Protein backbone atom coordinates (compact mmCIF):
# COMPACT_ATOMS: atom_id res chain seq x y z
CA UNK A 1 0.00 0.00 0.00
CA UNK A 2 1.28 3.43 -0.94
CA UNK A 3 2.11 5.99 1.70
CA UNK A 4 -0.22 8.98 1.89
CA UNK A 5 0.79 11.96 -0.25
CA UNK A 6 -0.28 15.54 -0.87
CA UNK A 7 -3.07 17.03 1.22
CA UNK A 8 -3.76 13.71 2.92
CA UNK A 9 -0.13 13.64 4.08
CA UNK A 10 -0.34 17.14 5.54
CA UNK A 11 -3.64 16.35 7.29
CA UNK A 12 -2.31 13.03 8.57
CA UNK A 13 0.87 14.65 9.89
CA UNK A 14 -1.00 17.42 11.69
CA UNK A 15 -3.42 14.90 13.18
CA UNK A 16 -0.56 12.63 14.26
CA UNK A 17 1.29 15.57 15.83
CA UNK A 18 -1.76 16.60 17.81
CA UNK A 19 -2.74 13.09 18.88
CA UNK A 20 0.80 12.02 19.84
CA UNK A 21 1.36 15.25 21.71
CA UNK A 22 -1.84 14.75 23.65
CA UNK A 23 -0.81 11.16 24.39
CA UNK A 24 2.57 12.41 25.60
CA UNK A 25 0.98 15.11 27.77
CA UNK A 26 -1.45 12.61 29.25
CA UNK A 27 1.43 10.25 29.86
CA UNK A 28 3.37 12.99 31.62
CA UNK A 29 0.37 13.93 33.73
CA UNK A 30 -0.24 10.32 34.65
CA UNK A 31 3.41 9.64 35.41
CA UNK A 32 3.56 12.49 37.93
CA UNK A 33 0.55 10.88 39.59
CA UNK A 34 2.09 7.44 39.22
CA UNK A 35 5.36 8.55 40.75
CA UNK A 36 3.57 9.62 43.89
CA UNK A 37 1.49 6.48 43.98
CA UNK A 38 4.50 4.20 43.43
CA UNK A 39 6.46 6.07 46.08
CA UNK A 40 3.49 5.80 48.42
CA UNK A 41 3.02 2.08 47.90
CA UNK A 42 6.72 1.43 48.41
CA UNK A 43 6.65 3.25 51.71
CA UNK A 44 3.43 1.52 52.80
CA UNK A 45 1.39 4.65 52.21
CA UNK A 46 -1.60 5.23 49.94
CA UNK A 47 -0.30 8.11 47.85
CA UNK A 48 -2.69 10.81 46.66
CA UNK A 49 -6.27 9.57 46.93
CA UNK A 50 -8.42 12.52 47.93
CA UNK A 51 -8.93 14.43 44.67
CA UNK A 52 -11.24 12.61 42.31
CA UNK A 53 -11.53 8.83 41.97
CA UNK A 54 -8.34 7.20 43.31
CA UNK A 55 -6.83 10.66 43.44
CA UNK A 56 -6.55 10.82 39.66
CA UNK A 57 -7.52 14.49 39.56
CA UNK A 58 -4.53 15.28 41.77
CA UNK A 59 -2.71 16.05 38.54
CA UNK A 60 -5.25 18.76 37.70
CA UNK A 61 -5.04 20.17 41.20
CA UNK A 62 -1.26 20.31 41.00
CA UNK A 63 -1.36 21.98 37.59
CA UNK A 64 -3.89 24.53 38.80
CA UNK A 65 -1.75 25.23 41.84
CA UNK A 66 1.33 25.78 39.68
CA UNK A 67 -0.51 28.23 37.45
CA UNK A 68 -2.15 30.17 40.29
CA UNK A 69 1.01 30.63 42.33
CA UNK A 70 2.84 33.91 42.31
CA UNK A 71 5.52 34.11 39.70
CA UNK A 72 8.72 35.68 40.93
CA UNK A 73 11.58 36.76 38.73
CA UNK A 74 14.60 37.75 40.82
CA UNK A 75 15.64 41.36 40.23
CA UNK A 76 19.19 40.37 39.42
CA UNK A 77 18.23 37.57 37.05
CA UNK A 78 19.00 37.77 33.37
CA UNK A 79 15.40 38.04 32.22
CA UNK A 80 15.61 36.72 28.67
CA UNK A 81 17.48 33.56 29.55
CA UNK A 82 15.57 33.15 32.77
CA UNK A 83 12.37 32.84 30.77
CA UNK A 84 13.94 30.80 27.98
CA UNK A 85 15.47 28.17 30.28
CA UNK A 86 12.27 26.34 31.33
CA UNK A 87 11.16 26.20 27.72
CA UNK A 88 14.50 24.69 26.75
CA UNK A 89 14.18 22.14 29.52
CA UNK A 90 10.90 20.92 28.10
CA UNK A 91 11.64 21.23 24.40
CA UNK A 92 14.17 18.45 23.65
CA UNK A 93 12.15 15.67 25.25
CA UNK A 94 9.05 16.82 23.40
CA UNK A 95 10.58 16.99 19.94
CA UNK A 96 12.45 13.72 20.50
CA UNK A 97 9.10 12.03 20.70
CA UNK A 98 8.49 13.00 17.09
CA UNK A 99 10.91 10.46 15.64
CA UNK A 100 9.84 7.51 17.74
CA UNK A 101 7.74 4.93 15.88
CA UNK A 102 4.78 4.22 18.12
CA UNK A 103 2.99 1.49 16.19
CA UNK A 104 2.65 -0.48 13.00
CA UNK A 105 1.56 1.47 9.86
CA UNK A 106 -2.12 2.32 9.74
CA UNK A 107 -3.96 1.64 6.46
CA UNK A 108 -6.48 4.36 5.53
CA UNK A 109 -8.56 4.91 2.37
CA UNK A 110 -6.04 7.58 1.36
CA UNK A 111 -3.00 5.39 1.79
CA UNK A 112 -0.66 4.08 4.47
CA UNK A 113 -0.03 6.28 7.50
CA UNK A 114 3.15 5.48 9.42
CA UNK A 115 2.72 5.79 13.17
CA UNK A 116 5.59 8.22 13.51
CA UNK A 117 5.33 11.98 13.33
CA UNK A 118 8.50 12.58 11.35
CA UNK A 119 10.12 9.59 9.69
CA UNK A 120 13.44 11.35 9.25
CA UNK A 121 16.10 9.22 7.51
CA UNK A 122 18.62 10.22 10.20
CA UNK A 123 16.32 9.42 13.11
CA UNK A 124 19.05 8.04 15.32
CA UNK A 125 21.42 10.98 14.83
CA UNK A 126 18.51 13.33 15.42
CA UNK A 127 17.93 11.62 18.74
CA UNK A 128 21.54 12.14 19.82
CA UNK A 129 21.60 15.74 18.58
CA UNK A 130 18.39 16.75 20.33
CA UNK A 131 19.08 14.78 23.49
CA UNK A 132 22.28 16.75 24.00
CA UNK A 133 20.29 20.00 23.89
CA UNK A 134 18.68 19.12 27.21
CA UNK A 135 21.74 20.39 29.06
CA UNK A 136 21.11 23.95 27.86
CA UNK A 137 17.96 24.27 29.92
CA UNK A 138 19.88 23.34 33.05
CA UNK A 139 22.91 25.53 32.34
CA UNK A 140 20.84 28.50 31.30
CA UNK A 141 18.57 28.25 34.33
CA UNK A 142 21.57 27.97 36.64
CA UNK A 143 23.41 30.88 35.14
CA UNK A 144 20.59 33.32 34.45
CA UNK A 145 19.15 33.04 37.98
CA UNK A 146 22.22 34.90 39.25
CA UNK A 147 22.23 32.90 42.45
CA UNK A 148 25.13 30.87 43.77
CA UNK A 149 23.00 27.83 44.47
CA UNK A 150 21.43 27.83 41.05
CA UNK A 151 24.83 28.38 39.52
CA UNK A 152 26.38 25.43 41.32
CA UNK A 153 23.41 23.28 40.43
CA UNK A 154 23.68 24.28 36.80
CA UNK A 155 27.41 23.54 36.76
CA UNK A 156 26.92 20.14 38.32
CA UNK A 157 24.09 19.39 35.94
CA UNK A 158 26.00 20.37 32.85
CA UNK A 159 29.10 18.40 33.86
CA UNK A 160 27.00 15.35 34.61
CA UNK A 161 24.85 15.51 31.52
CA UNK A 162 27.77 16.07 29.19
CA UNK A 163 29.68 13.17 30.78
CA UNK A 164 26.81 10.76 30.40
CA UNK A 165 25.97 12.05 26.93
CA UNK A 166 29.08 10.22 25.80
CA UNK A 167 27.99 7.05 27.50
CA UNK A 168 24.55 7.41 25.96
CA UNK A 169 25.86 7.86 22.44
CA UNK A 170 28.47 5.13 22.75
CA UNK A 171 26.02 2.62 24.15
CA UNK A 172 24.02 3.02 20.95
CA UNK A 173 26.94 2.37 18.63
CA UNK A 174 26.61 -1.44 18.86
CA UNK A 175 22.95 -1.09 17.86
CA UNK A 176 24.02 0.75 14.74
CA UNK A 177 26.66 -1.85 13.96
CA UNK A 178 24.07 -4.57 14.22
CA UNK A 179 21.23 -2.81 12.42
CA UNK A 180 23.35 -1.09 9.81
CA UNK A 181 20.82 1.72 9.59
CA UNK A 182 19.92 4.90 11.45
CA UNK A 183 16.23 4.99 10.58
CA UNK A 184 14.09 4.36 13.63
CA UNK A 185 11.41 2.21 11.87
CA UNK A 186 14.20 0.09 10.38
CA UNK A 187 15.70 -0.36 13.84
CA UNK A 188 12.34 -1.71 14.95
CA UNK A 189 11.91 -4.05 12.00
CA UNK A 190 15.45 -5.37 12.40
CA UNK A 191 14.31 -6.82 15.73
CA UNK A 192 11.39 -8.67 14.16
CA UNK A 193 11.46 -11.69 11.89
CA UNK A 194 10.14 -11.76 8.33
CA UNK A 195 9.68 -14.42 5.72
CA UNK A 196 10.58 -12.06 2.89
CA UNK A 197 12.87 -9.11 2.24
CA UNK A 198 16.31 -8.41 3.70
CA UNK A 199 17.32 -10.61 6.61
CA UNK A 200 16.67 -9.41 10.16
CA UNK A 201 17.85 -10.52 13.59
CA UNK A 202 14.54 -11.90 14.81
CA UNK A 203 15.05 -11.03 18.47
CA UNK A 204 14.99 -7.89 20.55
CA UNK A 205 18.37 -6.21 20.71
CA UNK A 206 18.28 -6.45 24.49
CA UNK A 207 19.41 -10.06 24.06
CA UNK A 208 22.27 -9.81 21.54
CA UNK A 209 23.35 -6.43 22.93
CA UNK A 210 22.52 -6.89 26.60
CA UNK A 211 25.42 -4.92 28.00
CA UNK A 212 24.67 -2.06 25.64
CA UNK A 213 21.13 -1.97 26.96
CA UNK A 214 22.42 -1.85 30.52
CA UNK A 215 24.70 1.08 29.68
CA UNK A 216 21.87 2.91 27.95
CA UNK A 217 19.60 2.37 30.93
CA UNK A 218 22.12 3.87 33.33
CA UNK A 219 23.12 6.71 31.02
CA UNK A 220 19.46 7.43 30.41
CA UNK A 221 18.92 7.70 34.16
CA UNK A 222 21.81 10.12 34.37
CA UNK A 223 20.47 12.12 31.43
CA UNK A 224 17.07 12.54 33.03
CA UNK A 225 18.75 13.81 36.22
CA UNK A 226 16.94 11.28 38.33
CA UNK A 227 18.05 9.44 41.41
CA UNK A 228 20.73 8.06 41.78
CA UNK A 229 22.07 10.75 39.47
CA UNK A 230 20.06 13.73 40.71
CA UNK A 231 23.11 15.74 41.69
CA UNK A 232 21.89 18.98 40.01
CA UNK A 233 19.27 19.19 42.74
CA UNK A 234 20.50 18.71 46.26
CA UNK A 235 18.45 20.25 49.01
CA UNK A 236 21.14 19.87 51.62
CA UNK A 237 23.96 21.48 49.67
CA UNK A 238 22.60 23.79 47.03
CA UNK A 239 18.96 24.25 47.99
CA UNK A 240 16.91 23.35 44.92
CA UNK A 241 19.78 23.34 42.47
CA UNK A 242 19.41 25.01 39.10
CA UNK A 243 15.72 25.79 39.65
CA UNK A 244 16.09 27.36 43.10
CA UNK A 245 14.95 30.78 41.89
CA UNK A 246 12.04 29.53 39.84
CA UNK A 247 8.47 29.67 40.95
CA UNK A 248 4.98 29.02 39.67
CA UNK A 249 4.60 27.44 36.23
CA UNK A 250 8.22 28.14 35.31
CA UNK A 251 9.22 25.72 38.02
CA UNK A 252 6.38 23.51 36.84
CA UNK A 253 8.00 23.35 33.42
CA UNK A 254 11.22 22.00 34.92
CA UNK A 255 9.19 19.56 36.93
CA UNK A 256 7.22 18.42 33.88
CA UNK A 257 10.41 18.38 31.82
CA UNK A 258 11.74 15.64 34.07
CA UNK A 259 8.70 13.50 33.31
CA UNK A 260 8.82 14.30 29.60
CA UNK A 261 12.42 13.09 29.69
CA UNK A 262 11.43 10.05 31.67
CA UNK A 263 8.84 8.97 29.11
CA UNK A 264 11.03 9.78 26.13
CA UNK A 265 13.95 7.88 27.61
CA UNK A 266 11.71 4.92 28.30
CA UNK A 267 10.38 5.08 24.75
CA UNK A 268 13.88 5.31 23.27
CA UNK A 269 15.15 2.33 25.23
CA UNK A 270 12.06 0.43 24.11
CA UNK A 271 12.76 1.26 20.46
CA UNK A 272 16.45 0.44 20.61
CA UNK A 273 16.38 -2.62 22.80
CA UNK A 274 12.86 -3.93 23.33
CA UNK A 275 11.75 -4.07 19.72
CA UNK A 276 9.76 -0.83 19.72
CA UNK A 277 6.13 -1.63 19.08
CA UNK A 278 6.80 -5.31 18.36
CA UNK A 279 4.52 -7.72 20.19
CA UNK A 280 6.62 -10.65 21.42
CA UNK A 281 5.99 -14.25 20.27
CA UNK A 282 3.51 -13.17 17.60
CA UNK A 283 4.54 -12.84 13.99
CA UNK A 284 1.28 -11.25 12.82
CA UNK A 285 2.36 -7.76 13.79
CA UNK A 286 5.65 -7.92 11.91
CA UNK A 287 5.11 -5.24 9.31
CA UNK A 288 7.77 -3.22 7.63
CA UNK A 289 8.17 -0.80 4.79
CA UNK A 290 11.24 -1.32 2.63
CA UNK A 291 13.21 1.56 1.20
CA UNK A 292 11.51 1.13 -2.21
CA UNK A 293 8.07 1.45 -0.63
CA UNK A 294 6.98 -2.19 -0.66
CA UNK A 295 5.18 -3.29 2.48
CA UNK A 296 5.94 -6.69 3.98
CA UNK A 297 3.23 -7.93 6.30
CA UNK A 298 -0.43 -7.15 6.52
CA UNK A 299 -1.20 -3.80 8.16
CA UNK A 300 -4.67 -3.43 9.69
CA UNK A 301 -6.12 -0.87 12.08
CA UNK A 302 -6.42 -3.26 15.00
CA UNK A 303 -2.80 -4.29 14.64
CA UNK A 304 -1.88 -0.61 14.84
CA UNK A 305 -3.92 -0.34 18.01
CA UNK A 306 -2.39 -3.48 19.53
CA UNK A 307 1.15 -2.38 18.74
CA UNK A 308 0.43 1.04 20.22
CA UNK A 309 -0.66 -0.70 23.40
CA UNK A 310 2.45 -2.90 23.35
CA UNK A 311 4.67 0.14 22.95
CA UNK A 312 2.89 1.98 25.73
CA UNK A 313 3.35 -1.01 28.01
CA UNK A 314 7.07 -1.21 27.30
CA UNK A 315 7.51 2.50 27.91
CA UNK A 316 5.45 2.27 31.09
CA UNK A 317 7.63 -0.59 32.25
CA UNK A 318 10.71 1.59 32.00
CA UNK A 319 8.99 4.55 33.61
CA UNK A 320 7.94 2.39 36.55
CA UNK A 321 11.41 0.85 36.68
CA UNK A 322 12.98 4.31 36.90
CA UNK A 323 10.56 5.11 39.70
CA UNK A 324 11.57 1.95 41.53
CA UNK A 325 15.19 2.99 41.17
CA UNK A 326 14.39 6.46 42.45
CA UNK A 327 12.69 5.24 45.59
CA UNK A 328 15.24 2.53 46.30
CA UNK A 329 18.76 3.75 45.73
CA UNK A 330 20.51 6.57 47.53
CA UNK A 331 22.33 9.04 45.33
CA UNK A 332 25.96 8.90 44.31
CA UNK A 333 28.53 11.21 45.69
CA UNK A 334 29.72 13.63 43.03
CA UNK A 335 33.17 12.08 42.63
CA UNK A 336 31.60 8.63 42.40
CA UNK A 337 29.26 9.87 39.72
CA UNK A 338 32.13 11.23 37.66
CA UNK A 339 34.23 8.13 38.31
CA UNK A 340 31.43 5.89 37.14
CA UNK A 341 30.95 7.94 34.00
CA UNK A 342 34.53 8.55 32.96
CA UNK A 343 36.53 5.75 34.53
CA UNK A 344 34.07 2.90 34.23
CA UNK A 345 31.50 3.51 31.55
CA UNK A 346 33.55 5.10 28.82
CA UNK A 347 36.48 2.62 28.91
CA UNK A 348 34.07 -0.28 29.30
CA UNK A 349 31.99 0.96 26.39
CA UNK A 350 35.07 1.41 24.22
CA UNK A 351 36.13 -2.12 24.95
CA UNK A 352 32.61 -3.35 24.42
CA UNK A 353 32.22 -1.59 21.08
CA UNK A 354 35.52 -3.07 19.94
CA UNK A 355 34.55 -6.55 21.09
CA UNK A 356 31.17 -6.33 19.41
CA UNK A 357 32.74 -5.04 16.22
CA UNK A 358 35.18 -7.95 16.24
CA UNK A 359 32.41 -10.40 17.03
CA UNK A 360 30.15 -9.10 14.26
CA UNK A 361 33.02 -9.04 11.79
CA UNK A 362 34.06 -12.55 12.80
CA UNK A 363 30.53 -13.88 12.44
CA UNK A 364 30.23 -12.20 9.04
CA UNK A 365 33.56 -13.59 7.91
CA UNK A 366 32.64 -17.04 9.16
CA UNK A 367 29.63 -16.86 6.87
CA UNK A 368 26.95 -16.96 9.56
CA UNK A 369 23.81 -15.58 7.86
CA UNK A 370 22.03 -12.64 9.49
CA UNK A 371 19.18 -14.11 11.49
CA UNK A 372 18.38 -15.95 14.68
CA UNK A 373 21.67 -17.89 14.67
CA UNK A 374 23.67 -14.69 14.32
CA UNK A 375 21.92 -12.96 17.19
CA UNK A 376 22.00 -16.11 19.32
CA UNK A 377 25.80 -16.20 19.01
CA UNK A 378 26.00 -12.54 20.03
CA UNK A 379 23.59 -13.27 22.88
CA UNK A 380 25.93 -15.95 24.20
CA UNK A 381 28.88 -13.59 24.02
CA UNK A 382 26.89 -10.86 25.76
CA UNK A 383 25.84 -13.07 28.63
CA UNK A 384 29.50 -13.80 29.28
CA UNK A 385 30.49 -10.13 28.98
CA UNK A 386 27.60 -9.05 31.18
CA UNK A 387 28.61 -11.51 33.89
CA UNK A 388 32.22 -10.35 33.74
CA UNK A 389 31.21 -6.69 33.85
CA UNK A 390 28.80 -7.14 36.73
CA UNK A 391 31.39 -9.23 38.58
CA UNK A 392 33.97 -6.47 38.27
CA UNK A 393 31.50 -3.68 39.04
CA UNK A 394 30.15 -5.63 41.97
CA UNK A 395 33.48 -5.63 43.76
CA UNK A 396 32.53 -2.15 44.90
CA UNK A 397 36.03 -0.77 44.43
CA UNK A 398 35.16 1.24 41.35
CA UNK A 399 32.82 3.64 43.06
CA UNK A 400 34.55 3.76 46.41
CA UNK A 401 35.62 6.98 48.07
CA UNK A 402 38.85 8.72 47.07
CA UNK A 403 40.45 8.11 50.47
CA UNK A 404 39.78 4.43 50.48
CA UNK A 405 40.98 4.13 46.91
CA UNK A 406 44.36 5.76 47.36
CA UNK A 407 44.90 4.36 50.84
CA UNK A 408 47.42 7.14 51.55
CA UNK A 409 46.36 10.01 53.76
CA UNK A 410 48.86 12.89 53.93
CA UNK A 411 50.29 13.31 57.41
CA UNK A 412 48.84 10.07 58.62
CA UNK A 413 50.45 6.69 58.36
CA UNK A 414 48.47 4.64 55.91
CA UNK A 415 46.44 2.23 57.90
CA UNK A 416 44.39 -0.61 56.68
CA UNK A 417 42.36 -2.18 59.39
CA UNK A 418 39.70 -4.78 59.17
CA UNK A 419 36.26 -4.34 60.62
CA UNK A 420 37.07 -6.46 63.66
CA UNK A 421 39.86 -4.24 65.03
Amino acid sequence: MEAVTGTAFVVATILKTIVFFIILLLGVALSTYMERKVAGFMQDRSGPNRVGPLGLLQVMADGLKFILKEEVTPGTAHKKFFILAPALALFPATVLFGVIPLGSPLPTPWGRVDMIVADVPIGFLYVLAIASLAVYGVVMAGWSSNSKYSFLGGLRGSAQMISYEIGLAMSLVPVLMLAGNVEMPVLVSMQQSFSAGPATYGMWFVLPLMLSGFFLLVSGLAETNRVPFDLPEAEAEIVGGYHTEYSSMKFGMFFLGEYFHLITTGALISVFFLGGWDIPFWQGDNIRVLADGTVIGDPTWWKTLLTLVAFTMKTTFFVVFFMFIRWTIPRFRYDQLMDLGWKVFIPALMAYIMLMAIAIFALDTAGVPVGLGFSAALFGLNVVLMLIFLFVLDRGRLVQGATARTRVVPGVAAATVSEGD
Partner: protein
Amino acid sequence: MPGEVRIVDRPESESSYIRAISKGLGITFKHFMHADKPTQQYPDEKWELGPRWRGTHRMAVHEDGRAKCVGCGLCPTVCPVNCIKLIPAEDENGERYAAVYEIDEFRCIFCGFCQEVCPVEAIHLGVHYENAEYSRERWVYDLARLCENDHPVTALWDPADPSSE
Protein backbone atom coordinates in the same frame (compact mmCIF):
# COMPACT_ATOMS: atom_id res chain seq x y z
CA MET B 1 46.67 17.55 65.56
CA PRO B 2 46.03 15.08 62.83
CA GLY B 3 43.60 12.42 63.79
CA GLU B 4 43.83 8.78 63.11
CA VAL B 5 42.25 7.75 59.84
CA ARG B 6 40.86 4.30 59.89
CA ILE B 7 40.34 2.79 56.49
CA VAL B 8 38.00 -0.11 56.85
CA ASP B 9 38.70 -2.89 54.45
CA ARG B 10 35.27 -4.38 54.13
CA PRO B 11 34.66 -7.88 52.84
CA GLU B 12 33.27 -8.13 49.34
CA SER B 13 29.84 -9.16 50.54
CA GLU B 14 29.53 -5.77 52.19
CA SER B 15 31.16 -3.57 49.59
CA SER B 16 29.24 -5.15 46.72
CA TYR B 17 27.22 -2.64 44.76
CA ILE B 18 25.12 -4.69 42.36
CA ARG B 19 24.03 -7.11 45.05
CA ALA B 20 23.05 -4.25 47.35
CA ILE B 21 21.01 -2.62 44.61
CA SER B 22 19.22 -5.87 43.76
CA LYS B 23 18.46 -6.43 47.41
CA GLY B 24 17.14 -2.90 47.77
CA LEU B 25 14.97 -3.24 44.70
CA GLY B 26 13.64 -6.50 46.11
CA ILE B 27 12.69 -4.81 49.36
CA THR B 28 10.92 -1.90 47.69
CA PHE B 29 9.14 -4.30 45.35
CA LYS B 30 7.97 -6.37 48.30
CA HIS B 31 6.52 -3.28 49.93
CA PHE B 32 5.04 -2.16 46.61
CA MET B 33 3.08 -5.40 46.31
CA HIS B 34 2.22 -5.48 49.99
CA ALA B 35 -1.37 -4.18 50.07
CA ASP B 36 -1.72 -3.78 53.83
CA LYS B 37 -1.17 -0.10 54.54
CA PRO B 38 -1.42 1.27 58.07
CA THR B 39 -2.79 4.59 56.77
CA GLN B 40 -6.01 5.72 58.41
CA GLN B 41 -8.23 7.46 55.85
CA TYR B 42 -8.95 10.19 58.39
CA PRO B 43 -12.05 12.10 57.37
CA ASP B 44 -13.68 8.86 56.25
CA GLU B 45 -12.48 6.67 59.11
CA LYS B 46 -12.22 8.31 62.49
CA TRP B 47 -10.33 7.57 65.62
CA GLU B 48 -11.97 5.48 68.32
CA LEU B 49 -11.54 7.81 71.25
CA GLY B 50 -11.14 6.47 74.75
CA PRO B 51 -13.76 7.31 77.42
CA ARG B 52 -11.17 9.43 79.24
CA TRP B 53 -10.27 11.51 76.17
CA ARG B 54 -10.19 15.15 77.24
CA GLY B 55 -11.48 17.38 74.45
CA THR B 56 -13.90 20.21 73.74
CA HIS B 57 -15.88 21.36 76.79
CA ARG B 58 -19.53 20.74 77.32
CA MET B 59 -21.90 22.33 79.84
CA ALA B 60 -24.51 20.10 81.44
CA VAL B 61 -28.06 21.50 81.37
CA HIS B 62 -31.21 21.08 83.47
CA GLU B 63 -34.31 19.58 81.89
CA ASP B 64 -35.67 23.06 81.17
CA GLY B 65 -32.52 23.95 79.23
CA ARG B 66 -30.79 26.15 81.83
CA ALA B 67 -27.08 25.54 82.41
CA LYS B 68 -26.32 23.64 85.59
CA CYS B 69 -23.59 26.15 86.47
CA VAL B 70 -24.17 27.95 89.77
CA GLY B 71 -21.41 30.51 89.26
CA CYS B 72 -19.36 29.39 92.27
CA GLY B 73 -16.13 30.52 90.62
CA LEU B 74 -14.13 27.39 91.37
CA CYS B 75 -13.29 26.57 87.75
CA PRO B 76 -11.75 29.97 86.84
CA THR B 77 -9.79 29.73 90.06
CA VAL B 78 -8.42 26.27 89.44
CA CYS B 79 -7.80 26.78 85.73
CA PRO B 80 -4.00 26.84 85.29
CA VAL B 81 -4.12 28.89 82.07
CA ASN B 82 -6.94 31.28 82.93
CA CYS B 83 -9.04 30.31 79.98
CA ILE B 84 -12.41 30.47 81.76
CA LYS B 85 -14.22 33.77 82.12
CA LEU B 86 -17.09 33.69 84.60
CA ILE B 87 -19.34 36.55 85.77
CA PRO B 88 -21.87 35.20 88.29
CA ALA B 89 -25.31 36.69 88.85
CA GLU B 90 -28.31 36.01 91.06
CA ASP B 91 -31.90 35.73 89.91
CA GLU B 92 -35.05 36.91 91.72
CA ASN B 93 -35.34 33.57 93.59
CA GLY B 94 -31.85 34.02 94.98
CA GLU B 95 -30.40 31.30 92.76
CA ARG B 96 -26.94 31.96 91.39
CA TYR B 97 -26.20 31.45 87.76
CA ALA B 98 -23.46 32.35 85.26
CA ALA B 99 -24.33 35.59 83.50
CA VAL B 100 -21.23 35.23 81.33
CA TYR B 101 -19.43 31.96 80.95
CA GLU B 102 -16.78 31.74 78.26
CA ILE B 103 -14.04 29.21 77.65
CA ASP B 104 -11.18 30.03 75.31
CA GLU B 105 -10.52 26.61 73.80
CA PHE B 106 -7.42 27.99 72.12
CA ARG B 107 -5.86 28.73 75.48
CA CYS B 108 -7.19 25.63 77.25
CA ILE B 109 -4.68 22.87 77.92
CA PHE B 110 -7.42 20.28 78.52
CA CYS B 111 -6.15 19.39 81.98
CA GLY B 112 -9.66 18.62 83.15
CA PHE B 113 -9.32 20.44 86.49
CA CYS B 114 -12.53 22.42 85.87
CA GLN B 115 -14.50 19.21 85.52
CA GLU B 116 -12.89 17.75 88.64
CA VAL B 117 -13.50 20.83 90.74
CA CYS B 118 -17.08 21.56 89.69
CA PRO B 119 -19.35 20.96 92.72
CA VAL B 120 -22.53 20.56 90.62
CA GLU B 121 -21.01 18.62 87.73
CA ALA B 122 -21.91 21.34 85.28
CA ILE B 123 -18.74 21.87 83.23
CA HIS B 124 -17.27 18.82 81.56
CA LEU B 125 -14.61 18.05 79.06
CA GLY B 126 -15.89 16.03 76.13
CA VAL B 127 -14.83 13.10 74.01
CA HIS B 128 -14.49 15.28 70.94
CA TYR B 129 -11.61 16.85 69.05
CA GLU B 130 -12.72 18.28 65.71
CA ASN B 131 -13.08 21.94 66.56
CA ALA B 132 -11.34 23.77 63.74
CA GLU B 133 -12.61 27.29 63.09
CA TYR B 134 -11.99 30.02 60.55
CA SER B 135 -11.28 32.71 63.16
CA ARG B 136 -9.77 32.93 66.62
CA GLU B 137 -12.92 34.58 67.98
CA ARG B 138 -14.91 31.46 67.19
CA TRP B 139 -12.64 29.52 69.52
CA VAL B 140 -14.04 31.36 72.53
CA TYR B 141 -17.08 29.25 73.39
CA ASP B 142 -19.87 31.09 75.16
CA LEU B 143 -22.42 29.48 77.44
CA ALA B 144 -24.95 28.83 74.70
CA ARG B 145 -22.41 26.96 72.60
CA LEU B 146 -21.15 25.02 75.57
CA CYS B 147 -24.70 23.96 76.35
CA GLU B 148 -25.38 23.01 72.75
CA ASN B 149 -22.45 20.61 72.59
CA ASP B 150 -23.83 17.10 72.77
CA HIS B 151 -20.79 14.86 72.50
CA PRO B 152 -20.18 12.36 75.30
CA VAL B 153 -18.54 13.80 78.39
CA THR B 154 -15.12 12.72 79.57
CA ALA B 155 -15.04 10.03 82.23
CA LEU B 156 -12.79 11.15 85.07
CA TRP B 157 -11.73 7.60 85.84
CA ASP B 158 -11.96 4.30 84.16
CA PRO B 159 -15.23 2.73 85.38
CA ALA B 160 -13.61 -0.69 85.15
CA ASP B 161 -10.71 0.40 87.36
CA PRO B 162 -11.96 3.19 89.66
CA SER B 163 -9.03 3.19 92.08
CA SER B 164 -6.48 4.16 89.43
CA GLU B 165 -5.97 7.78 88.43
